[in-house]
């Protein structure tokens, strides 16, 4: 880490300044995370008393539970498909906005709005739009009765939450893709144009390859966000159903820990999820260090 050449040397003041942050981080981050680790290896006896050390038993219980693997599988399906959709649309819109034709500023301004909407509000809006008996998609049911019903059909429910989550993430991807595109020197594009490459050719052969760092960064952020945001959407739209078709990881932790009151099981699941997210972030940091700069 690069520091300053000119610094102050009142040690007591330096500690005092950073103390509030450290107290918060310790109380609400390190202590809870450490405690979760401890709980994950212990069990509370049914009639009270001290926690018992049970080793890997909680993890074994979790890993042997088909319902847990169901939630992992659903989370991955949800995360990967909404990431793919949101990044695809974000990239296409950014590429065409970056052509800077008349009015592109208005589009840039308006495209960003969905990012402000809270996950449960997104959930409620899409629950209405995709409701089987009212709203818009219900028109399908007038032509083909019973074709669309997220409350009964697991696949429909998954489509609903994927579309809702992708919609709310497009704006974020758009902004980052646009920033990535703008960091590409115009002279490269001009050189391409001089050599006779058309607009689409330049997008494919110059802009897309140079956006590779942004793509990688966004994949990690999108997947992490899909774990985090999923709760609000799932809780409002499907409640994990029908028959656990949308029982995503964070939602399952919530229902096991707070509805089912099984803290040990929830803690073990939390640890697995934490490790997963940390692993994703590590990959990203390793990569970010090697990020290529073009300027």
């Amino acid at each position, binding site marked *: *880490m690069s520091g*300053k050449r*000119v*610094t*102050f*040397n*009142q040690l007591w*003041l330096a500690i005092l*300044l*950073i103390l509030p942050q*450290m107290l*918060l981080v310790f*109380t*609400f*981050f390190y*202590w*809870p995370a450490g*405690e*979760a680790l401890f709980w994950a290896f212990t069990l509370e006896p049914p009639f009270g008393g001290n926690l018992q050390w049970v080793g890997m038993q909680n993890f074994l219980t979790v890993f042997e539970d088909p319902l847990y693997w169901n939630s992992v599988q659903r989370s991955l399906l949800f995360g990967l498909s909404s990431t793919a959709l949101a990044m695809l*649309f974000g990239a*296409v819109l950014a590429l*065409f906005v970056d*052509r800077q034709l008349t009015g592109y500023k208005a*589009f840039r301004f*308006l*495209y960003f*709005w969905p*990012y*402000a*909407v*809270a996950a*449960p*509000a997104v959930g409620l*809006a899409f*629950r*209405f*739009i995709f409701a089987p*008996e*009212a709203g*818009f998609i219900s*028109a399908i049911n007038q032509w083909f009765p019973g074709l669309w019903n997220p409350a009964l059909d697991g696949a429909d429910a998954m489509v609903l939450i994927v579309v809702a989550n992708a*919609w709310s993430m497009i704006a974020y991807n758009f*902004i980052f893709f646009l920033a990535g595109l703008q960091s590409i020197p115009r002279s490269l594009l*001009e050189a391409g144009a*001089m050599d006779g490459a*058309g*607009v*689409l050719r330049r997008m494919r052969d110059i802009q897309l390859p140079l956006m590779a760092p942004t793509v990688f960064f966004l994949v990690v*952020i999108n997947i992490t966000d899909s774990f*985090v945001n999923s709760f609000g959407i799932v*809780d*409002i739209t499907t409640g994990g159903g029908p028959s656990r078709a949308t029982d995503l990881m*964070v939602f399952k932790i*919530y229902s096991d*820990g*707070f509805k089912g009151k099984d803290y040990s099981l929830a*803690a073990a699941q939390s640890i697995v999820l*934490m490790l997963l997210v*940390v692993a994703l*972030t590590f990959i990203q940091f390793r990569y970010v260090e090697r990020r290529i700069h073009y300027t």
Partner: protein
Amino acid sequence: MVERTPILNIVTHLILLAGLVMLLLPLWIVFVASTHDFRTVNTVPMPLWPGRHLIENYLFTWQQSDFGPKMLNSLVMAMGVTIGKIVIAALSAYSIVYFRYRLRMVFFWLIFITLMLPLEVRIVPTYAVAANALRPYQEILNLLGLSLVLPEWSLLNSYAGLILPLIATATGTFLYRQFFLTVPEELAEAAKMDGSGPLRFFWDILLPLSKTNMAALATIMFVYSWNQYLWPLLVVTDPSYGTAVMQLQRIVPGPLFGEPPRWHIAMAGTLIVMLPPLLVVIFMQRWFVRGLISQDK
């Protein structure tokens, strides 16, 4: 660019318009649905043009969901997180960048690591601490064999409980740190030469220079904290501390038999809840985007 591409330009505009419809149509539908009466909102397909029941729907929703106090609670939480974050992050970044001491790197990494795990991921253990925020310190005292008994400080059903855990992240600290590192060395040098101490330098020189940074941080933190859902749901059981976003759970037209699908009321509530952060993003977009992109996530 250099060439003329009339056809591709038309295609470009069509794609951009399609994107606009895709991104804003859901918001428009929410608005339109909130202006119709019960019968119209349940016709299939619903009309795409606003009706005449806007005012009565909003008045009804506002009173039924008790949005007055809920919005106030959300505002207190969002402002608390925003201001707390701006202050605490500035102080700690200043300590890390402008002082040289051995633990600096340790602190740096301890703060840095918190970026990795969002609150939603470690919700179970954090909730356990919220029941008594002084418990970690009590247990440390117990471990050390000191028989000092700290008072209990429950964060459940309190503004502190809504606010404090959301401040305990690294986001702002890194925004400030990156900015402080770009401040020319000569400024601190000159300030020292003129006999100014560290606090005076911080207050009179560094903070005025960080205004844009603060605006960027304030917008992202406001939107982030207003939109919190899972954490308030756990920490608040007393309705008088409930936030506006939590209220959405109550206005979902329920699966209960016999309950009419009052979508017009639900959509009015959705719009009320999403409006404050939407206004922040619309009017402060420049700062918002800057904060978003420059935070080293």
